[in-house]
């Protein structure tokens, strides 16, 4: 196997762009699972749902980025609804929440998948935009514009959410409720409403992530399965609840996958996320920046 530095360089740059995207896609899970402790294995399925909604809007001429932004409010409400239901049905009742909560979200993910299959079939779906299909020539490399767009949105999203969590009152309340719910209650804030709000934000962010997903490449109903691996890999590698960690972990995953893709081909790339996840769970389960 001849080793080419040019190829490696290109793989790394592509990996950075991909990694930024993975980080953005995982941020919703970082909040929902990392901070709020909800066993939200349906997160990738909701993201794929967002991707399909973007596709539908694309059929009416909507630009995918705008579609993603437009989907954020309804998905915010969806997130509030999901958390409320989860809280009333599981968290409140206490017993056996682990098994039932997991089984519940697993079932929900599955139902979303099947409904998408019934409505759209198993074929892949794409969207079209001016920046999809074109590349930017930079320093001897051709960087796909769609990757740059996704990367840009990803950075904005991560930065925005990190600032929100540390600078605003509600944001800090969210971080507080993750650390000590009882203390928060004593201060007069209602932890359930805060968690609800946080889950809503996480889901809204996921809608935009879904738009990015379909910008980057074609989407089909089973896409959520590989993303269970990628998002949980990023969230665990980052360390539960760490937003900056999510960005770093996303980059690590993106670069690793890109290198494997270049050297070993597409059939091995999905195993990278899952393999990395298992390694992290075995060696350092608290992740890089775990609290």
């Amino acid at each position, binding site marked *: 196997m001849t080793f080419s530095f040019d190829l490696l360089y290109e793989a790394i740059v592509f990996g950075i762009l991909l990694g930024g995207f993975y980080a953005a896609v995982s941020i919703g899970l970082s909040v929902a699972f990392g901070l709020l402790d909800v*066993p939200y294995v349906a997160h990738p399925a909701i993201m794929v749902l967002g991707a399909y909604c973007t596709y539908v809007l694309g059929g009416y001429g909507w630009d995918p980025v705008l579609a993603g932004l437009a989907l954020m409010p309804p998905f915010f409400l969806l997130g509030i609804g999901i958390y409320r239901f989860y809280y009333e049905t599981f968290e409140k009742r206490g017993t056996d929440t682990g098994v039932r909560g997991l089984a519940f979200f697993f079932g929900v993910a599955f139902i979303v998948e099947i409904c998408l299959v019934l409505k759209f079939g198993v074929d892949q779906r794409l969207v079209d935009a001016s920046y999809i299909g074109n590349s930017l020539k930079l320093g001897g490399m051709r960087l796909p514009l769609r990757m740059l767009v996704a990367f840009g949105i990803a950075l904005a999203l991560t930065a925005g959410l990190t600032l929100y969590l540390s600078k605003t009152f509600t944001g800090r309340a969210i971080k507080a409720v993750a650390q000590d719910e009882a203390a928060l209650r004593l201060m007069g804030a209602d932890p359930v409403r805060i968690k609800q709000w946080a889950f809503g934000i996480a889901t809204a962010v996921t809608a935009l992530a879904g738009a990015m997903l379909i910008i980057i490449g074609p989407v089909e109903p089973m896409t959520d399965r590989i993303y269970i691996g990628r998002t949980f890999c990023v969230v665990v590698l980052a360390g539960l609840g760490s937003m900056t960690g999510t960005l770093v972990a996303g980059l690590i995953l993106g670069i690793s996958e890109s290198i494997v893709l270049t050297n070993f081909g597409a059939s091995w790339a999905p195993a990278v996320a899952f393999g990395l996840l298992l390694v992290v769970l075995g060696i350092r389960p608290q992740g890089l920046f775990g609290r």
Partner: protein
Amino acid sequence: MRRRVPRFWIGAAATVVLAAILSLSRINEYFFFAGYAVLQFVVLATAWNILGGYAGYVNFGTAAFFGIGAYTSVFLFTALGAPLLVQIVAAAVVTGLLGFGTGLLTLRLRGIFYSIATVAIIYIAETLMVNWRYVGGATGLQLLRPTVMFPFATYTRMLFFIMAVLAVVAVSIARYIEVSWIGRGLRALRDTEEGAESSGVPTLRLKLLACTVSGALMGVAGAPLPMYLSFLEPASTFSLNYSVVALAAAIIGGTSNWVGPAIGAILLASMQQIVTVTISSEMNVLVVGVMLVVFVVAAPDGVLGLIKKLTRPRATAGGAP
């Protein structure tokens, strides 16, 4: 207590005899084809429940253990012409080790990490099989079934009988675990792990035991699959559907007792056959998903729980809510 034990074994023996009689009868071949699938899910659901119901660790990766059991069979058959019994034993060993390894990796962490790790196993297993030419790679492998064994008229009938025996074995193992000190230890650690440890329960060892037994039984369920289909390919073998149905069957039937998964599997798998034939195969998966969610939300103790509620005499008012 001495009088209750034989009743189960009488029932078990009767089931085996019934299966033998059926498979030697002149019933339509389709009955055995569908019956095999139902019995297969009885084994899968029972195996799932040993870890999921008794210990509280949710395995999403049933498909991985099932598939590796199938591929172990294919490998042994192709390489050594191994008979079915050897395939089954080998599958049990391989998937038992896999269960043990997965447990070792993740059981010190919270339950959800075990669940995610099991999803990872599916992907990794499938990727490995896809890239392994010897067992067919992505396109799969065709198999020539050996000649039919007397006294069975067809190979499928024999597989039906064997799967019935395996189902009885699986249920017996689950029952033994449940009523013995092992089951009590598992329930204790599920209730409060710290409390269990301070009561002398070796929680990690018991969890590993449950993982190993559960994994091994899932592999056993998958071992006859290549013979059943005369064909094996990765995508449909490692399908998440197996994971969902096994989990759903146990929850819908009732996870607290060994009868639950069997009931759930029979109900669900039969329903699947009916829906697939009358409506569509996507629809049947949707029905499974919806039933799972409905039961988890509204009837978490499953069919068994519902029966208990209906047959319990009306309790007098009082007691804390």
